[in-house]
Structure formats: C-alpha cells, structure tokens
C-alpha cells in the first residue's frame, strides 16, 4: 500500500454515522422513557391485574328462622384445550351424562365464546350440581386440562313467595351507570322483591386483590404481598316477617285462582304472608334456566310475574263501609244508633238504588255492617258530605279524602317492596274537572259510600286498613323485612318503621268492630266463622265490568288483642262470601291455631280444589308446569 492514505477522511464519516445513530437512539429513549408516561400505565395494566373478590350474598330467613334463600355451590367445568392429553371422551361423556354429539356441539360453542383461548381455562359446561360434580371429581385425574370452577346460585327451598323474595339477574347498563360503575357487566344484582330492595345489604361489599399475571393472564403472585388488597365483606342476612308455613298454605288455598292474600300483624305492620296467585317456583329464575323461564312466565296470560297484592287495584266494595261509618261517627253527623229504613231500594235525587239483598232495616251501625246495608251507608255518606258546618261540599269532601288517606288509601303504604300502586281516592279537583267547579253534589259521588265508583285499593291497602281498625286508630308501615343482621359481628339492625295515626277517636272503633264481629258471627260472612276464634271482618264484592265480580274479604282476629289482619281477593269469584271469606278464615285459623278443625277440613278441601281457570279463559296453569331443574 502506498504510504499516502488517500481516504483518511473516511475515518470520520463512519464516526459521524455512529454518533448520529447513538444520538438518534438516545432521543428515542428520552421520548419513550421520560416524556411519554403512557408506557408506565400500560406496563402496570399489563402485569398487575385487579381481581375482584365477590362476597357471599346474604341469606334470607322467615320470622321463625326457616331458611328461605341460600347460596348453592355449583360447578362450571372448565377446559384448557392445550393441556388436554388423550382424554377418554366416551368416559367423560358418560360421567357428564351427555352424548358424544352434545359433547362436540358444546366444544364448538366453547370455541366461539368471547375471549376463548387454548391456553386459558374456558367454560365448557355450565352449572353442574354438586351431586353430579362429586361423581365427576373422582375421575378428574383421568382428564388433564379439565377442571371444576366453583360458582354459586340462589336457591329457594320453599318454592313459594316468589314475588316477595324476588330474584337476581345480570345487571343492566342503566344500573351500572346509576351505581357509578361499581357494578360491572356480568355482575348479579337483585331484580325484584327483597333481592332488589335490599340489594345493598344482601350484596355486601366487593373486595379487591392485586396480582401479578403473566403474559397468558395466569396469576403468578400477589402484588406487594397483598398490601393493597381489600377483603370482601359478606352480605347481611335478612330475617323477613313472613311466616313461610302460612305463605305456603295461602298459596295452596289460592291455587287455580287469580288473586291475592295479604296478612299483616297489626301491632307491628309485619307482613305475615302475601300471596300473589298464580305464583311460580322462584327457583325457575335461577342460573342458566333463567332466561328461558322468564320468557315463558312473561308470556303467560295469567301474569304470574305480576305482584297482585301491591299492584292490582280493585274497588273495595262493601269492605270499605267501616271507613265510611268511622268518618261519619267522628264528624258527629250521626250517632251509633242512627236508623235508616231499608226497603231494598234507596231513592235519592231521582236515582233508584238497590240494596244487595233483603233484610230488616238497620237501627244502628252494627246491624247495618252485619247486613252490609247499602242504603244505610249511602245515607251515612250523604250525612257526612252534606254537613252544614262546612262551607260547601268541596271542603267536606276534601276532609273526607284526607281521612281516607290517613288510612293508607289513595297513597302508597311505603312497603319495602319494589313496586306499589297507590290506588285511588278521587280528589275534589277530579270532580271539579268532571262536573265543573262547584257543580257537583252528593248525588254525583254517592257510590263512594259503598266503596264503588272511582275508588280503588290494592289488597295490601285493604289489609292495612283493617290492621288500622284492629289497632283502633293507627297503623305501622307494612313491611317484609324484620331484621338485618351482620353475619360476622352478629349485630342486628332493626329498622324502625313509621307509625301513622288517624284522626278518629278510639271510642268510635268499638261499635264498628262490634259490627264487623257480627258480620262473621251472623252476617254476610257466616261462611268464615271459626268456632273459638273471634274473627271480625267485612265481605266485599267488587263490581267488574269485564266479567264475574271479584270476591273480597278483609278482617282481623282475634277481636281483643288482634294478631292478624287479612285481606283476600279472588278475581271473578263472585260474592265475598263465596271464596274470599272462607279462605281468609282458613288463613286466620291456620295462623292462630296452627291447625284446621276437623269440621272445617271439608271447607279447606273445597277451597283448595276450586278452580276458576275457565273463567280466565285458560284450561291449565302453564307456569305451574315449568320445572326448575332437578332436585
């Protein structure tokens, strides 16, 4: 080589190229590692996963400690396809009780699941019962790649009180938003009944743990040894006011009939039983079968999902007469011994109104109740609203409406169940609108005196109104939850319920209660007489323009120190004495004596067997034929 190096300067070319690349890399690193903080978050999301720990949902008991809702462990069979090694498919099918075709179909379905991965466990078969799973578990070692994942499902050992206890289902978009994103898609929340109203108490508080996950999302360790983890707080247990045996008995009496029973303990406002008929087995809406059954129940023309006791409204008919009487007595427009002639027909302002049946004229309010005399209460109502002490009928009527509201009529009772109708006690403004302001008179609203016309009440309001009569002037918000207890500390949280007093003096209740007693003893509800028990009550027949009248009865027992107030409605059952009164009496007897007297067994059998389905245009109660899985 010549001594003179012609290309000496090229030494620098390479040095410049290298320095440029190094500077370029440094700038890029500066951007990635210092200026762009996004990657720190991405790395955290990558490697540290927040895993929710779900608390166990609270249990629900009846007033006597009977378990009404519990959590049953179930198993999902999971498969990690990569880990499956030469499994004996025939044997597995046999253990699972499925055919080879079903197995293949389920496998294909699994592969279509969202988030399917051959490296991670995927749900293969959902909700295998503990019994089936234990059989499978013995042989699990033969099937590498398969594993059981424990889940839990709500179970209702008594297959009754579905609309009260309620159900749980997947949370919807609206609820997620309302919860400030506490709930996540796929979470289960109460959808109806107690499950819905007491969601917060039953649901507990979700815990969190932070774990390291590897690239396949597998948990490989705790982050900072669990320093930031929070434990799940189990849901509270709930003790309801229900007497589940009474509830069961009520549902049996109501089978093949549409209607309601509401039984309240007057001194506390506790709901002892609340039957919505036809009902359904609450287990139908649990787990994997929920969607299918919900659809079937929703399409049923008998409306089993409809909570009749709190939502259905009826004109109370004669069962409303005690209230008309009480208001008149309190207002001083007539005495207890007020006399009204009843010739069977009541002439008023050109109207010709009929009494329900022939009976001797009533010389006092007790006898008028016993005979359920319509003219007596028309006259009583007239006396009340035509009271000259008030400026005009509008003012009196407004006060009359207020009395009714005080009895919990035309307003919501505030029961701790999700849906409640408030019924209707028409307002003076309503009549202003129909007849014109100051252009309506007692003749326009006379039918209110016998519980007909615009007046509408729910069975719950009816029972509550009689609880108020039983208490001689007050009622406590009817409720289905007695106590909420923390399963860990065992502490009770007894909730105070509001007490409402009506502006009617105690003295006026005596004659009314006497009248109600006579109704059962020797009046229209003789069919409901229970030897040895002083049942006080009133039948009612709600006029039904669409078919047979609704049979109603409301009352309480015993007369002194009442233990139970009850309202029964049997749709299209005719007179109150036909179905409602006997059913109410059986409920009362069952509750107070725990047994039905021998001579009343035939009545019990008759009520249980009676079938009104034809009147509803169906031949069979479809919902009762639905089967809630195996047992």
């Amino acid at each position, binding site marked *: 080589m010549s001594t003179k190096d012609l290309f000496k300067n090229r030494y620098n070319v390479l040095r410049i190229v290298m320095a440029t690349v190094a500077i370029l890399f440094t700038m890029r690193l500066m951007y990635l590692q210092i200026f*762009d903080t996004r990657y720190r978050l*991405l790395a955290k999301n990558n490697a540290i996963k927040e895993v929710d720990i779900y608390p166990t949902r609270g249990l629900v008991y009846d007033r006597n400690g009977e378990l009404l809702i519990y959590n049953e462990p179930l198993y999902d069979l999971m498969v990690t396809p990569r880990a499956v090694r030469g499994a004996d498919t025939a044997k597995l099918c046999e253990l699972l009780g499925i055919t080879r075709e079903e197995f293949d179909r389920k496998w294909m379905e699994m592969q279509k699941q969202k988030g399917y991965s051959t490296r991670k466990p995927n749900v293969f078969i959902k909700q295998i019962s503990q019994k089936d799973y234990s059989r499978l578990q013995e042989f699990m070692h033969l099937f590498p790649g398969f594993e059981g994942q424990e889940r839990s499902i709500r179970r209702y050992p008594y297959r009754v009180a579905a609309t009260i206890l309620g159900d749980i289902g997947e949370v919807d978009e609206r609820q997620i938003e309302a919860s400030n994103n506490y709930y996540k898609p796929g979470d289960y929340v109460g959808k109806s009944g107690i499950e819905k109203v007491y969601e917060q108490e039953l649901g507990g508080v979700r815990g969190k743990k932070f774990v390291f996950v590897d*690239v396949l999302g597998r948990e490989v360790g705790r982050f900072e040894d669990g320093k930031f983890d929070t434990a799940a707080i189990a849901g509270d247990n709930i003790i309801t006011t229900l007497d589940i045996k009474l509830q069961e008995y009520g549902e049996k009496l109501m089978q093949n009939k549409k209607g309601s029973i509401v039984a309240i303990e007057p001194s506390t406002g506790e709901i002892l039983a609340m039957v919505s008929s036809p009902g359904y087995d609450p287990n139908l809406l649990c787990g994997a079968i929920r969607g299918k059954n919900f659809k079937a129940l929703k399409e049923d023309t008998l409306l089993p999902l409809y909570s009749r006791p709190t939502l259905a409204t009826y004109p109370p008919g004669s069962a409303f007469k005690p209230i008309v009487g009480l208001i008149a007595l309190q207002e001083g427009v007539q005495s207890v011994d007020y006399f009204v002639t009843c010739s069977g027909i009541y002439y008023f302002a050109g109207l010709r109104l009929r009494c329900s049946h022939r009976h001797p004229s009533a010389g006092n309010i007790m006898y008028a109740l016993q005979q359920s005399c319509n003219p007596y209460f028309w006259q009583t109502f007239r006396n009340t609203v035509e009271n000259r002490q008030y400026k005009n009928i509008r003012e009196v009527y407004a006060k009359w409406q207020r009395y009714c509201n005080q009895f919990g009529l035309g307003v919501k009772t505030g029961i701790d169940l999700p849906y409640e109708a408030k019924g209707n006690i028409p307002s003076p403004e309503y009549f202003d609108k129909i007849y014109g302001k100051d252009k309506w008179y007692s003749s326009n609203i006379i039918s209110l005196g016998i519980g007909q016309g615009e007046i509408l009440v729910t069975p719950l309001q009816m029972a509550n109104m009689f609880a108020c009569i039983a208490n001689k002037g007050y009622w406590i918000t009817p409720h289905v939850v007695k106590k909420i207890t923390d399963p860990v500390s065992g502490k009770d949280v007894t909730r105070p319920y509001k007490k409402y007093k009506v502006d009617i003096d105690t003295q006026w209740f005596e004659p009314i209660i006497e009248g109600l007693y006579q109704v059962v003893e020797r009046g229209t509800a003789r069919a409901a007489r229970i030897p040895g028990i002083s049942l006080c009550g009133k039948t009612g027949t709600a006029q039904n323009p669409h078919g047979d009248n609704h049979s109603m009865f409301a009352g309480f027992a015993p007369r002194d120190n009442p233990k139970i107030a009850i309202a029964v409605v049997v749709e299209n059952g005719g007179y109150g004495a036909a179905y409602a009164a006997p059913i109410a009496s059986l409920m009362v007897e069952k509750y107070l004596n725990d047994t039905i007297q021998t001579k009343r067994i035939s009545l019990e059998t008759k009520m249980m067997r009676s079938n009104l389905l034809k009147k509803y245009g169906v031949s069979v109660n479809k919902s009762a034929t639905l089967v809630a899985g195996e047992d």
Partner: protein
Amino acid sequence: MPRQESIAKRIDWVVVSLYAALVIFGWLNIYSASSGGDDVSIFNSAINSGKQFRWMVISGLLAFAITLIEARFFVTLSYVLYVLILLFVVSVFFVGTEIKGQNNWIKFGGFQMQPSELAKFGTALGLSKFLAGLNVDIRKWADKLKAFLIVIFPMAMVAAQGDLGSALVFFGFVLAMHRVGLESYFLIVGTALVTLAILALVVNKYYLIATMFLLMLLFGYLFWKNKKLITLTFLIWVAASAFVYSVDYGFSKLKKHRQDRINVLLGKEVEKGRDWNIRQSIIAIGSGGFLGKGYLNGTQTKLKFVPEQSTDFIFSSVGEEFGFVGSTLLIAAYLVLFYRLLYLAERQRSVYSKVYGYCVVSVLFFHFMINIGMTIGLMPVVGIPLPFISYGGSSLLAFTLMLFVFLRLDIQRYETMR
C-alpha cells in the same frame, strides 16, 4: 513472535475490558429475563443464564487461545478459512435443522449452532485478504465486482436460510470497502434506495411513480437546454420506477410474518397481535422511566411479556430495569467500543489489518443499530442478537472470534500483513 508477557502488555486492554464488561452485563440481564423472578441460581443450567455461563467460559478460553496464535496464520489462511466457513454454511442446506422459522441450525448431538454467525467472520477474512492484494484497487470495476462477490455469496446463503437479519448485517462490509476507496455515491445511492424502498411500501406505488414523473418534468423545464441532464433525469426516473415496482412485487412475495413485521414498523394496520413483540418491548422500555425499576424488578421482564427477551429483545430488559440512564450508558459503552476499534484500525500499518478492523467494527455496529433500533421501534423486527449481550452461544463465540483476531492483529500492527 512476541513473548507471553509482552502480549499481555501490548493487547488493547480498553477493548478487552469493554468486552468483558458487556458480556457480564449481558449475562446479568439474561438472568433477569430468564429467571422470571423465580428463586433460581444464575448458574442453573436449566435457564439461559446458566447456559450462557458455559458459553462465556468457552469464549474466554477461545479469546485467550487466539491471542496466542501468530496473526500470520489467519492472514495466510484467509481464503482457506473463507471457503471452509462457506462450505460449512452451505452444509446447512443438507444437514440443517429448522428452529423458529430459520433453517440455519446445525446439530451435533446435544449441541446446536448457527453457521451463519461464523459467515461474517469468514467474509471479513476473505474481504480483507482480497483488498490487501498488491494491485487491487476498489475503484476499478473488476475489483469492485470481485469484492462485492466475496460479500454477496455468503450473504445470499444466509438469506436463503431464512435469516434475513443476519443477511442485512453484510451491508456493513460496504463501510469497510468505503474506507479503502469505494466511491461515496455507493453510500448515497444505497441510502436513497433504502428511502425509496420504504416509500414504495408506505405509499401507493403509482402515486410515487407519478410524483417522480412530475419532479422529472419540473427538472426538465428548469434545465431544458441541457439535453444530457434531461436524458440522465429520465433514465433515473425509469430506474427509480422500476425499483419501486420491484420492491412492491418483492414485498408481496415475502413470507406473511415478515410482511407484517415491516408493516408494523411502517405504522400500517396489521392483523391483531402481530405487533405484539414490538409493542411489549416498547412498553417494557418505556415503563423503565428515568432510573429504571431496578435490577430483577422489571414486571414486564419478570412476567415474560416480551417474547425472546433473553436473545433478540434483551435490550428491553435493560431499558425496563435500568431506565434511561442505564440504556444510554449501554449505548455510550458501545460507542466507546466502536470508536476505540476504529482508532485501533486506523493505527494499523497493513491494509489487511485495517480493512479487517473496519469489517469487525462495521458488523458490530450493524448488529447494534438493527437490534436496538428494533427493540425501540425504529427498525423492523428482524431478529439478530445484540453483540456480547444477547443470549446465544453461536453469536458470542463468533463475535469473540472476530474481535480477538483483530486484537491479535493489533498486537502485531508493526508487521506487514498481506
């Protein structure tokens, strides 16, 4: 031949120290990337750091042995070694085993290696020998052709075996040729072609050709009097268009995963998950921050989010655990090594040693540039090791061999090598 103690005195300790430091630093990072946070020994041969330790010992012995071998041995046998190594590379076609999509592994019993790593060493020897020839002048077309053939032949072999990354490194030899007189327009045209190739992949080829046509018209309008220039411009346009067209065609013939890798780099939409490697690597490096998460504390590293992390993506572990400071220090260490090697190359008396030195530094630099560029998202994912740092016996042995042969040449730099 100098005596032993004078070897110890005359060997360039700066390079030896940097070499040792990089290898040990690499080993520590391999441990971090392969232990996954488990409590295993760094020497445990069940994980990569344990295996790498064996290779480190072997490489140390090899380095020591090479410093004892008379430099003239390599100089004299350059062509022989070049041919032997080439044959070894070719033998892969007959007895090779495919590992991870690359059909370039040879197995002897439980031992496997990639001859392609050795090909760079062989090429360096062959090229140095040729350019050191008495009447060889790279500026002459015949010599240029011969020099290029010496490089292209092994390069084509390696590329044919599916190792596109290693084949790219052979472009490094152009830098060595440039040092002894290859015209600079080779570098300029080369860079222009790479730019055009990237443009061809990013934008629609017809728009590109049309745009170049408009540019040509503009140029013709400005210099319409100069017929020669206009003809040249036209020819350049035709050549560029043909190139753009062929790049697009060639791209369509590439294997799917390679297409995806290039698309990822160019920011084009690819099938979900295809950009996983590079994304995870950038996340790991980016999450390291200024000071890093600390040795063995990288969550992305420990939890194996970055695939191939102890081999091709080892820099992501460095970036995560040692942060910006550690990453730039490592880059600085490489730069010092390269500058030192260039300095050593410049002080060689013989052309052979100088060209060989430039070959070594160019190959190392290309590995460095492509590998780190890939992990930080500036280069396509082509899968070549980071010299001295990445896990892998073949590459560590090959780099050690190349480097220490040069150090031995440097010891004898006052002697004439030809």
